[in-house]
């Protein structure tokens, strides 16, 4: 197990380094931060001063060297826009994103496995049809629309929940509910498909013939075998959430990393872009590692 983790960590480190190099140079291709930071009436002299203050006049290799040197000293640089350390800016935002992703994916996984499995058990039955139709609607509804409608109905109309923001547990309900819908719809479909295959396999038929009850057949025997593709999709969806849920963050005023990243790219706040990419990349690496470990726990063949 330890050599496996070590090997994966090394491979991820190499990818991370390549990522930093690529993002560093590519982001600088987008243009000069002075053009965006200063008002359009600013003189060339002011722009020159701005570049000087932020070290943007040096040759790009010098800037890169300085960045790497600082990084080796655990310094991700300053945010030009916010005049504070880029790491602090990103860490604050990432904490919100992480909580949102963890809660949402836990709820999605639990609900999708139960509902997908039950739908598969009587495939084509009434429950299956209702589950399939609603999950397909969920998987295809545009989230910005769902979010606005949810605010209009539950906050403005019924007055049950706050429209947006953070502060109390009630503020989490609408963003999580809206974020829940799409991965739920998708994962229910995958669980259902995978379970139908598992339930039609020979060992399930044998178990049934032996008189094993429905519940242990579904949740003990079939589910474990059906879980491998499901875990892949869960990992995929969780990675997307860790990159930030831009639409949800924008509409609900949730201070996560997705909107931060988009804003920083648009504002050419390079240090924040790099810090955000590094932190989310490390998080995604850790999550992929967990998924690999889950694979090997579920299927002993993978361990070898």
């Amino acid at each position, binding site marked *: 197990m330890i050599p496996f983790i070590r090997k994966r960590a090394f491979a991820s480190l190499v990818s991370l380094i390549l990522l930093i190099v690529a993002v560093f140079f590519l982001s600088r291709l*987008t*243009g000069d931060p002075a*053009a*965006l*930071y*200063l*008002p*359009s*009436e*600013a*003189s060339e002299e*002011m722009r020159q*001063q*701005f570049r*000087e*203050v932020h070290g943007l006049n040096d040759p790009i290799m010098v800037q890169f060297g300085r960045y790497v040197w600082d990084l080796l000293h655990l310094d991700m640089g300053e*945010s030009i*826009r*916010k*005049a*504070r350390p880029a790491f602090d*800016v990103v860490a*604050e*935002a990432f904490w*919100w994103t992480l909580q949102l992703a963890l809660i949402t994916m836990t709820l999605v996984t639990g609900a999708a496995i139960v509902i997908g499995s039950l739908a598969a058990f009587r495939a084509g039955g009434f429950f299956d049809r209702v589950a399939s139709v609603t999950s397909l609607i969920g998987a295809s509804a545009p989230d910005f629309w769902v979010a*606005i409608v949810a*605010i*209009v109905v539950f*906050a*403005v109309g*019924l*007055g*049950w*929940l*706050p*429209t*947006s*923001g*953070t*502060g*109390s547990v*009630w*503020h989490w309900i609408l963003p999580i509910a809206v974020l829940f819908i799409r991965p739920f719809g998708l994962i229910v479909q995958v669980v259902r498909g995978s379970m139908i295959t598992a339930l039609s396999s020979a060992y399930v038929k044998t178990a049934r013939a032996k008189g094993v009850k429905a519940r242990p057949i579904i949740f003990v025997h079939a589910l474990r075998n059906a879980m491998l593709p499901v875990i892949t999709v869960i990992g995929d969806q969780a990675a997307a959430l860790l990159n930030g849920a831009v639409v949800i963050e*924008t*509409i*609900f*005023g949730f*201070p996560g990393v997705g*909107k*931060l990243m988009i804003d920083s790219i*648009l504002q*050419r706040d390079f240090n924040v872009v790099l810090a955000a990419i590094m932190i989310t990349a490390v998080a995604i690496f850790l999550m992929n590692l967990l998924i690999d470990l889950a694979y090997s726990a579920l299927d002993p063949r993978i361990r070898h």
Partner: protein
Amino acid sequence: MKKALLWGAFAAATAMTPAWGQDVKIVLNEEADVLEPCMATRSNVGRITMQNINETLTFLDIKGGSGLQPKLAESWEQQADGSWRFKLRQGVTFSDGTTFDAKDVKASFDRAMNPAITCEVPRYFGGMTISAEVVDDHTIDFKADPVQPILPLLLTLLTIVPEETPVEFIREPVGTGPFKLTEWTPGQQIVLTARDDYWGEKPAVTTATYLFRQDPAVRAAMVATGEADIAPSISAQDATNAATDFSYLDSETVYARVDHSIAPLNDVRVRKALNMAIDRQAFLGTLVPDGTLLATAVYPPPTLGWNPDVKVWDYNPEEAKKLLEEARADGVAVDTPITILGRTANFPNNVEILEAVQQMLQEAGFTVEVKFYEVAEFETYYSKPYAEGRGPQLVVAMHDNSKGDPSFSMYFKYASDGRQSGIADPKVDDLIARASAATGDERAALWKELQAYLHDEVVADVLLFHMVSFSRVNERLDWTPTMATNSMLPLADIKFK
């Protein structure tokens, strides 16, 4: 069902503590990234800090229309050598307890102009050498070369900080204003609290909380549910409640900058034809909200020297066609394709408006294409140096001038060396120079003359609209938005019914 109702009631009770009492909640479209006083001319900073945390020597009363008013300066006068002497208010303290005096003013000015930090203030003092000299604790002189008749107006933009403020961007501003910063949770909220030791009249508001939501529909919903009291800049579609929603002329003007150095736009007949081919009236109440004014200058009507005699170009496609034919007969290449350049998401219905303009111009016989660019790339077309080998271009921009004087617009937009100027006209340069140097009635008269000359004779550009904004305000407040609301929001103006 019962459970759901109970749960709903509980949620309502805990989550939505309405902002009653003397507290106000203001929901803005973007968070301030710094609360740096020398960046207060940037709207996302200024709306929070300007005249709330940090004050200025003078301020321009746009709401009451009474012109330039004293703030931290009690009086000012021009000296024989053209410099300006300001007598400062006494007994004023900063929120950190230190006393305000002339040394703070000099330090604030020097700090804002210091190249080691990139403040916005220096851009308003371009083209002059200017220095501040302390005379005594409560007197300070500003010497400018060339002499600046509007120096007291320019000082409405200089926020005063304590002498000890470091020369780097700060996130915890200290000022002389009626409020001080008490909380800033990045991404969530900024809280200002009224000071007990403020020198002036105590404001009605005791605490102001600023929240940030990018989506205008959410901002409007927050005032509807009582989660916020003021939502500036909601969209026209959301402004549906007459009791809470205000529409008001803001300080933005939409216009198409015409590049006079490139054929066929170097021909005045072609520029007249452009103006006559556009049915501006047709946009009102359709693509731009009712209340929008058709523009005759690049700044809005309440600006000094506004010329009411300048009339919007009549919509006359027949005359436009005739002018084009005349130009063609004289060998002007009127068929050269003209590009309309727009900035993505610059203002509501941006795309539709420019496509309609394209359609109208084509009907009059122009060949026109429309291109959109995001802000950074747009900037390369909007500001000098312009690209070599560019074709004829109409750059559609939105310009903000809430400062009450045309000098903030005229130089940049029309002087030969103005950064966004499409023209080079010696008479315009001369008028700008003379108007900038003049005071009182003479100044107003010169600006008036320049506005008419640019519009009627030079036909400098295609002016389109003076824009309106919409704000939603909780009914418990006695407050109405003004032209200045988009750049500053003094909490002292807010009263309760």
